[in-house]
């Protein structure tokens, strides 16, 4: 197994007692797989991602990647955030160069690589612009380019399209799907959007909240040219809905 998550637990101390964000999470992920963590807010999916990425420590359990235990973040595994995390004082190309600055000494080389990835996300015309001059979708493209530039093995995405409007979202989903497959990246993608999870994933990990547990794992066996309106797509979407409706009745937001 490539990413091994074993018996992970984490609680937060709150006024009303301990909040069990994660309880006994075990998950194995193959190289090149696209995994979605799907669940309502507060189900611990972001906490799980943060632990796997090395930003937070678990109370118990372990995460290892390629046999090595994760204890700190590394540029081999890059996280993309919902609010982009672009540096507002740097233009597009300089933002993409950020991660390269610790790896590559030569300025020229850095610029060349950054240019390549800015092109990959289709922003070559905007490379001298600053983040505030770009739309939300474009900003997220920049952060995707910045992540890809350091050539990571794994990309973690924490509700990356959560702040975008629907049409932009669809477009970004198409692009990230294409990029992840063509660059052969392993992706863990946190979302609360069912359709997004079905469209992108090889497997959908459905989580429930308090305690945050894995409720069900759904395999998405769809061809690589996915069609959101096809019967098979709707079918799998139905399965996900079912998984949510079965037990949890407090999450009204996911019922039809």
């Amino acid at each position: 197994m490539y990413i091994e998550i074993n018996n992970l637990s984490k609680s937060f101390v709150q006024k009303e007692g301990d909040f069990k964000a994660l309880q006994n999470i075990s998950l194995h992920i193959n190289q090149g797989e696209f995994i979605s963590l799907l669940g309502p807010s507060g189900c611990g999916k972001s906490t799980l991602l943060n632990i796997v990425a090395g930003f937070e420590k678990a109370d118990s359990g372990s995460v290892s990647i390629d046999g090595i235990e994760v204890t700190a973040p590394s540029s081999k595994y890059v996280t993309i955030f919902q609010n982009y995390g672009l540096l507002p004082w740097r233009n597009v190309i300089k933002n993409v160069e950020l991660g390269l600055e610790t790896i590559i000494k030569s300025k020229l080389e850095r610029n060349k690589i950054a240019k390549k990835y800015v092109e990959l996300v289709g922003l070559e015309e905007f490379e001298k612009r600053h983040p505030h001059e770009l739309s939300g979708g474009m900003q997220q493209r920049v952060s995707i380019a910045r992540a890809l530039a350091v050539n990571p093995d794994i990309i973690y995405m924490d509700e990356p399209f959560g702040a975008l409007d629907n049409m932009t979202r669809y477009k970004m989903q198409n692009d990230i799907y294409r990029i992840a497959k063509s660059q052969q990246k392993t992706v863990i993608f946190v979302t609360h959007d069912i359709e997004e999870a079905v469209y992108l994933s090889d497997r959908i990990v459905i989580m429930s909240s308090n305690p945050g547990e894995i409720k069900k794992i759904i395999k998405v066996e769809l061809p690589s040219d996915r069609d959101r309106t096809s019967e098979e797509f709707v079918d799998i979407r139905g399965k996900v809905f079912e998984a949510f409706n079965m037990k949890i009745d407090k999450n009204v937001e996911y019922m039809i």
Partner: protein
Amino acid sequence: MVKNIKKVKHVIVSFIVLIAIWQLVFITGEYNEALFPSSISVGKAFIEMFTQNYVILDIWSSLYRFLIGYLSAVISAILLGLFLGWFPKVFAYVNPIFQLIRPISPMAWLPFIVLWFGIGDMPAIVIIFIAAFFPVLLTTISAVGNVDKTYLKVAKNFGIKRLSVIFKIVFPAAFPQIATSLHLALGSAWVFLVAGEMSGAQSGLGYLIIDARNSLRTDLLMGTILLIGIIGFTLDSIIKFIELLILKNWGVKPGDRR
């Protein structure tokens, strides 16, 4: 462009009205010219100040003291602020001392400053330093604490070293807030320059005030006061302009703040 023309119009109209009221009060009040100079005699004094050249030297020595005091305060306050902002536990111990010193007027230190640093340029420089230091320091510390945590996560993710994080990420991210304090500190430092020069200095704008008083020249006195205002206003405009120019790159629009 239209906005600028309007601004110039506001400035010109407000000054004309001020001078008109001044002159009106002078004419109707029948005050003694030696106690309350007319705008015309102050205008003449202004010409005298500049034609006899000495005022230029005084402006220079004031600006020299101001720049040394202000820049050294700003640089040391920012560096110390970055450090203390980065280590909040250390700051928690130092903060009570700052809170004790901060409300003390820089002028209260003057006797000690003269004892320790002597007379000449130093008293004014030290007083400007004290005046500019605390606002910049305290703003920098709080700005470092307010830096978006996502930036720090990104830096960590890319394995950027600690010292580089401070200068590459934390300082620029905190800069818009720091810039506001630089602006405010400039204003208060300029106020204290004159006060500092009024005691012991042998040149400078503050000295001119004392000199005019001693020679009972209220016209020169008022002229110097106006000159202090004009230079302060100019310095403020310059730093405002620089601030806008830099912040444009940060995507901070002037209306977003304050």
